[in-house]
């Protein structure tokens, strides 16, 4: 079987995902094209060799509708031969796209594929695409609740206090602050420019390295009102009858931020590197996606990681670094607790609580970050995992070569 090598990875900075955010003036296609063009230019990629451009994008409506991957590739100036497809596995989409590209290369069907993702949450707000997930019938059948309530449910069931989740958030901000100051992302960040080449955003816009526990503690729980006043908490009892009260601990400060951004990862077989005269940075060891109980929704990283480890014939101890998406603090706390992974192996440079979570792009960004961290720390293996709406999880294990 051929191997799927990761030759390079890039990402745009993440801009605040609201109309005052820097990247609001760029269409999603511009963000995706920025990442794709940069990936090509850095690697000298002959884009006629690209068998597919797979981009994750969650809210595929309005400016993100109608297979944005194909049009982003065209806008980036890719060869007309390079096709594009857009995938949606909710928050796992970016990693799903990388896995899909890696699978096609690894299976020998493709020689070269790009995985990545894009999401402009400022221009195409979450939910703009509608969907069956919001149907009342789904609520009655599965008791699905908004993610924040799921996150609060995890905290409630595992006994994480507001102080616990705030402390985790503070650490994420601190790690991000130190990492940014040390310039660890510089090699992967591609600045977003306007049509004249004037800078729009060159660094991540969301991190607040000066956050304090006191400041975080003052924030209102984000999901308390919908949980208590609008009775959404009661829906939880459909699956968890013993939970008589959900503790609402998650706030805007300890949940992932809403941002805009795009990422792209070049995957190919060994021959691609020879042809382009570039050396691979890593290989994809294994991957997994799982489904589980959809109301609690966010516990997928654990079974997904286990499955990926099992397929790679590895154990938790064989992994040097984990990137676990900080959708909510409780998600990562639960992961570390359940798999018994120390925090110093997880999210070395902080996570989505500090940088934000551009839904469809995050998975590819985390893979990029994990790869950068492995290289900069001189380590070998990393596992990237994300929780996913609808009760799913995704994980990918990579290894430097």
């Amino acid at each position, binding site marked *: 079987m051929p191997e799927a090598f990761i030759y390079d990875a890039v990402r745009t900075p993440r801009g605040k995902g609201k*109309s*005052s955010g820097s990247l*609001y*003036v760029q*269409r999603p296609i511009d963000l995706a094209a920025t990442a794709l063009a940069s990936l090509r230019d850095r690697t000298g990629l002959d884009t006629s060799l690209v068998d597919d451009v797979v981009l994750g994008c969650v809210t595929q409506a*309005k*400016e993100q509708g109608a297979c944005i991957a194909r049009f982003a590739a065209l806008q980036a100036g890719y060869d007309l031969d390079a096709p594009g497809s857009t995938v949606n596995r909710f928050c796992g989409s970016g990693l799903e796209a990388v896995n899909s590209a890696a699978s096609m290369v690894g299976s020998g069907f493709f020689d070269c594929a790009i995985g990545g993702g894009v999401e402009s949450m400022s*221009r195409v707000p979450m939910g703009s695409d509608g969907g069956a997930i919001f149907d009342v019938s789904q609520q009655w059948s599965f008791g699905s609740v908004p993610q924040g309530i799921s996150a609060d449910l995890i905290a409630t069931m595992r006994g994480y206090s507001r102080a616990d989740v705030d402390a985790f958030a503070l650490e994420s901000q601190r790690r991000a602050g130190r990492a940014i100051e040390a310039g660890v992302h510089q090699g992967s960040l591609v600045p977003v420019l*306007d*049509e*004249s*080449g*004037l800078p729009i955003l060159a660094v991540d816009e969301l991190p607040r390295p000066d956050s304090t526990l006191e400041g975080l503690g003052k924030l209102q729980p984000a999901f308390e009102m919908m949980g208590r006043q609008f009775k959404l908490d009661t829906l939880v009892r459909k699956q968890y009858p013993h939970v008589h009260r959900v503790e609402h601990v998650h706030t805007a400060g300890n949940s992932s931020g809403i941002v805009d951004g795009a990422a792209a990862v070049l995957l190919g077989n060994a021959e691609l590197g020879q042809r382009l005269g570039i050396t691979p940075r890593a290989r994809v060891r294994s991957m997994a996606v799982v489904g589980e109980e959809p109301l609690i929704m966010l516990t997928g990283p654990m079974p997904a990681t286990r499955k990926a480890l099992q397929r790679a014939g590895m154990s938790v101890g064989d992994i040097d670094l984990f990137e676990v998406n900080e959708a909510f603090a409780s998600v990562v706390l639960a992961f570390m607790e359940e798999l018994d992974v120390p925090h110093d192996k997880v999210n070395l440079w902080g996570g989505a609580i500090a940088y934000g979570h551009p839904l469809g792009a995050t998975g590819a960004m985390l893979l990029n970050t994990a790869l950068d961290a492995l290289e900069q720390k001189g380590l070998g293996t990393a596992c990237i995992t994300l929780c996913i709406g609808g009760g799913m999880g995704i994980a990918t294990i990579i290894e430097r070569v």
Partner: protein
Amino acid sequence: MAELLKNSLGTLSFDESSGVATLTMAMEGGVNKVNDAFGLGLNEALDTLAQLDGLKGLVLASAHRDFCVGADIDMLYKLTDPADVFSMVSQINALFRKLETFGKPVVAALTGTALGGGFELALACHHRIALNDARIQVGLPEVMLGVIPGAGGTQRLPRLIGIQPAVELMAQGARVRAPKAKGKGLVDALVDTPEQLLDAARAWIVANPRAKQPWESRSFAFPGGVQPQTTDAMNLYTAASAMLYDKTAGALCAPEVLLQVVQEGCRMSFERSLEREARAFTKLATSGQAKDMMRTLWYHKNAADKHEGLPRAEAENIEKIAILGAGMMGAGLASICAQAGYSVVIKDIAQAPLDAAEKRVRDNLKAMRHLSADEREEVAGRVSYTLELELLRGTDLVIEAVVENLEVKHKVIAEVEPLLAGGAIFASNTSALPISDLAKASAHPERFIGLHYFSPVEKMPLLEIIRGEATSDETLGRCLRFAKRTKKTPIVVNDGYAFYTTRLFSAYTLEGVQLVAEGHDPRLVEWGARTAGMIVGPLQVFDEVTLTLGLKAMEGASAYGYHLADLPGVALLRTLVNEHDRLGKAHGAGFYDYEKGRRKGIWSGLTELTPPPPAETGIDIVRRRLMLIQAAEVGRVLDDGVLQRHRDAEVGAILGLGFAPGTGGPLSWMQRQGLAALVHELEEAAAKWGDRYAPSPTLRDMADKGEVFFRD
């Protein structure tokens, strides 16, 4: 009224009894334009008003003829760094935002024209009242100079009048006269006098103390029904985009960017949509296309209209004009002269053309809606139609538009000249015959001149003035005054067969036929020309002027040393005319088929008359050749000393011939290619396709010395 402030923008006064302040713009130089002085002045006025107790609202007025003429093109033209342009438009946007979110109602009192940035200023006000006067125009004509509105126009206008009408107005760069502007929603009210205007403005302020822009409201919906990001909007943009492409063939950047910015900006928050517009504006404003268009269509056209560098006459001394020949051109000339107030006699040798001419003069007047019936009758009454020479007596200016034949013209000159008033000017509207040759029949060659008009003369803005060897400065100066009164933009060239425009025109159209004769697909030839930016493809032009006329001109040219008869293209013309009776559009058959006068496809028989396509063909080659041949010809015109000013080459080609406006003209086009590279390319072209492509000595010399036509 107490005066609060006087600064670089104008005067700010306050009427305590009504609580209404008035900012009367009165910038130096007689025009209000959006520049640094404007910005500082407006900002200071707003800051002053913010401190004022009892303020109910603000009226923005002008002490000059125009309300505000818009962006300072001098400033914009010089800016080449995108960061500078972006910073400039961002500042203007911030200032206009300050005005519209100022908290008090602001009314624009349009006592004069507001175009471009001037109308954008009015759009940033909460209410617009104009004088009901057809001389006042409003609109956003920025695309005409290769840019888009850059002070919020692309965002405020769709939000004010709806997406579709806004796109139409801006993409066409249309100017709308005040009386029509209300119906289009561009102004909110019309009044008859300046006094009524100020009263109406104050009354509106009092009645609307909490005025704010509709787009500030949470419940804002676009007028006209089409909301952004709906299937209606999708259909609208798809059609608008295609219709624009149908017009521009992709040769102009600004209309395309305009549509894109409207589409995108209307999806965005209003505040940030301004940034989107500013970024798109910046890209365009620093582009070569915008600079070239501004140079020609702003600077050079203005210079031509002001007759810069040209001889001046103390007085025009023209009251009575005689037009010889009542054809389409003669009738059109009579029409524009009468409209300009001259007394006109139009003479022909047959009654039928005279009758047709009278109908044309009257039809033209009917279309002038801003004139009353009496005014129309008065203008019509200025023209008399005659078969008699006698009526020409006392004429100050004769323009002959008789057949293009040296002998006939000589005869007419000799016949008419003795009847004229003392000091009269004799002008020929010939499109090719050398003026000095015609002047040989004149007793006063110093008062003999070429006035070459373009058809239809009522619409075409250019006048090519040809100086004969003996034509005096005084005669030229008087003709320039005449040009101004008849609202024509003049270029002044030296004598020589076919002068300037006819030579360029012939090179272009004949090469189109030549390409077909070589076997290139005629459809590619036509579309290739369009994608180069030429307004009309060469074969369509040929059909319109008629193939016989083209052939005749070519035969005439041989007397002046132009030997084109051997070209396969000329042979093809002969075959079409002599063997297939395809004479052109008027005949119902030419390169194209026609059905009831409407152009259909290229005649299918054409390919049977031409060889199979050459190995080297395609849209890129035909497009390139159609431009190169014109460059080569202009190079020769420069050699011959016919062109005296580079500006004339540019203005003449675009205004007279429909040369690609996005290029700024043939010289600008050449300069964009790089003269050295162009000379090299022309040499190669000459080797492949014939000597007519050879770079002229002037071009070679300039290329060798690294010279350029225009230094900015």
